[in-house]
């Protein structure tokens, strides 16, 4: 096996295109999973069973089925029901939805960790329910969960290559495209492997900085 630097050079234009797609999918997937996870967590705190049960069942189902299956379902089955999304939109939605069922548990733990005294002080000051959540509980809960949410960003990053299976040309998709045209696998696959390490490492650095600033 020989290492061909010229293949690396030729792959680079494809690499940059793929990197942008991967980072976009990661950013949008994170955004969806962070916001949807919070929505799930808050819905699970409503006092009525008629909200808790459906949300509990749906999220349990999503959490317990493989992301790949969900991707295929959204990509191949939804159009039959008349809902056609672009491959990228489908992928981002699937990742966001899948991971929202994990982030909801992170949020729940964060909310539960806010001491009861905080709720009591809010009641004693007659704060409304909305105000209690927005001004007192969530700021404290979210501060606590940033590290855990960050770990899911790194997990999501490592799941983005699955989008290749529904035709999204992210990093792995580009590498495969290049290999099929040039019959050189080692170089493109190594390059994207290194890219994943670098992105993960940078993300964890960013996370640690964020942690230091938030958790004081």
């Amino acid at each position, binding site marked *: 096996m020989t290492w061909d630097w010229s293949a690396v050079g030729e792959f680079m234009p494809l690499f940059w295109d793929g990197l942008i797609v991967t980072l976009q999918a990661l950013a949008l997937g994170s955004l969806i999973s962070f916001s949807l996870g919070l929505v799930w967590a808050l819905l699970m705190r409503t006092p009525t069973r008629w909200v808790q049960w459906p949300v509990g069942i749906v999220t349990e189902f999503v959490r317990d089925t493989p992301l790949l299956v969900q991707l295929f379902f959204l990509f191949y089955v939804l159009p039959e029901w008349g809902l056609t999304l672009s491959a990228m939109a489908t992928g981002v939605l699937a990742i966001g939805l899948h991971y929202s069922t994990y982030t909801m548990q992170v949020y729940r733990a964060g909310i539960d960790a806010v001491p009861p005294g905080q709720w009591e002080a809010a009641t004693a*000051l*007659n704060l*409304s329910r909305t105000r209690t959540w927005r001004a*007192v509980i969530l700021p404290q809960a979210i501060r606590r969960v940033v590290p855990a949410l960050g770990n899911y960003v790194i997990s999501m990053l490592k799941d983005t290559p699955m989008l290749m299976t529904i035709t999204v040309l992210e990093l792995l998709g580009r590498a495969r495209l290049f290999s099929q045209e040039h019959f050189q696998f080692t170089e493109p696959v190594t390059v994207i492997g290194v890219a994943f390490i670098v992105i993960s490492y940078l993300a964890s650095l960013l996370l640690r900085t964020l942690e230091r600033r938030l958790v004081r």
Partner: protein
Amino acid sequence: MSVETTKTPVDSAPENTELIRLDQVTKRFGDNTVLDHLDFCVKPGRHVTLIGPSGSGKTTILRLLMTLTKPDEGTITVDGQRLFPATEKQVREVRKKIGMVFQQFNLFPNMSVLRNITEAPVSVLGLSKDEAEERARELLDLVGLADKCDAKPSRLSGGQQQRVAIARALAMRPQVLLLDEVTSALDPELVAGVLDVLRDIARTTDITMLCVTHEMNFARDISDQVLMFDSGRVIESGPPEKIFSSPEQERTREFLSAVL
């Protein structure tokens, strides 16, 4: 007064002059009956101290009045308005009249000292930010922490945090201030500062104070009435001079000799 009486009003005043009134209030936690058909009332402007062994139901009364817990039976009225049983809307209305200071301070750690005090006046009473901050600064001055406006609570000592918590409760201009063992979590050298602030408030305002404490000297200082609790009942009540120097009940004598 005899031990058997369940009806133990603080004052034998006509009903319409009572600010706080509990009628036949029972509170159970599981099999444990913390309050047993308690009748209890407080006239406006009074400073009432509840003493008694732990688990005797003192703190539960404060928590019932602050609506942090609900009674199993009975009615609670504050300033002529029903607090229990009542609708959420009624409760919110009555709660405006009541402020509480907690053993563990319970300041909001995500907010500055000033924001802790202005949050509720702005979002609940609808004060403008400027009005609320002016009020907050006056109160911080009163509790001797005018220079700590921008500090986060975690930067303050326990005593300072408790003084901020007192300012925060007062910012809502309550008619009743509930004080739940406010010095119990403090290092001994920090207790005096907090008690001085409370003495000051007791002397200079007409706010009604309901106080659970183990600081008997403080109780003697500020209260008009001391109530001795045991097993969910008031077993003895009277002015502090009487309770502390010549208690009638054997149980009260035992308790006082243990804590004094």
